[in-house]
């Protein structure tokens, strides 16, 4: 298993600003993912954070809006750019290693409110 921390745990932001969310894992992992959980809804995969290369985005999500970095095997950031109230969600980081075949472990999430 893995212990995952996210910063900040919550934030309230103004429309048009950007917020960067950090995800830190206590061990090296193969894959890191970013999900969004909108109020009352399920989890939607935003992208896979690839170490040393550009993230792989799911349909409906673009790099300009959600730039992602992954400088090493234990850390990733997700930026929510030019925010609008529709971006109010919980953003979750998850990780998976080759030996855990499909089993993902989730961070505590970042609750974002955009005014």
């Amino acid at each position, binding site marked *: 298993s893995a212990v995952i921390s996210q910063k900040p745990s919550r934030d309230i932001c103004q429309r048009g600003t950007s917020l960067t969310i950090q995800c830190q894992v206590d061990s090296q992992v*193969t*894959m890191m*993912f970013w999900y969004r959980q909108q109020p009352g*809804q*399920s*989890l*939607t*995969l935003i992208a*896979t954070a690839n170490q040393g290369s550009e993230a792989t985005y799911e349909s409906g999500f673009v790099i300009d809006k959600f730039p992602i970095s992954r400088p090493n095997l234990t850390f990733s950031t997700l930026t929510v750019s030019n925010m609008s109230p529709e971006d109010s969600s919980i953003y*979750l980081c998850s990780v*998976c290693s080759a030996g855990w*075949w*499909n*089993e*993902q*472990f*989730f*961070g*505590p*999430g970042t609750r974002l409110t955009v005014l």
Partner: protein
Amino acid sequence: AQSVSQHNHHVILSEAASLELGCNYSYGGTVNLFWYVQYPGQHLQLLLKYFSGDPLVKGIKGFEAEFIKSKFSFNLRKPSVQWSDTAEYFCAVGDGRAGNMLTFGGGTRLMVKP
């Protein structure tokens, strides 16, 4: 693309009642199946998982799930719920061809009345 359906969005039970939450998926190939739970104010935790072998899998806290390939189902069960089982439950399916990515169902919010 895969889809995962959870039929019950909200379930209310009294303590000691039996629980069954439905989960169906669309993909016809080899799948890995998961149930996650999110207790109020806490992060997602894995309840149980199925990769291969015995289709009846047991998880934590007395939960179990049965994989029925012919029905594309992976229903979650517990014979006697407790108030502490109040939480949101998510079914997720991993398609090995797509690496480790999961598709989640819409979730079922369970409330257990004491």
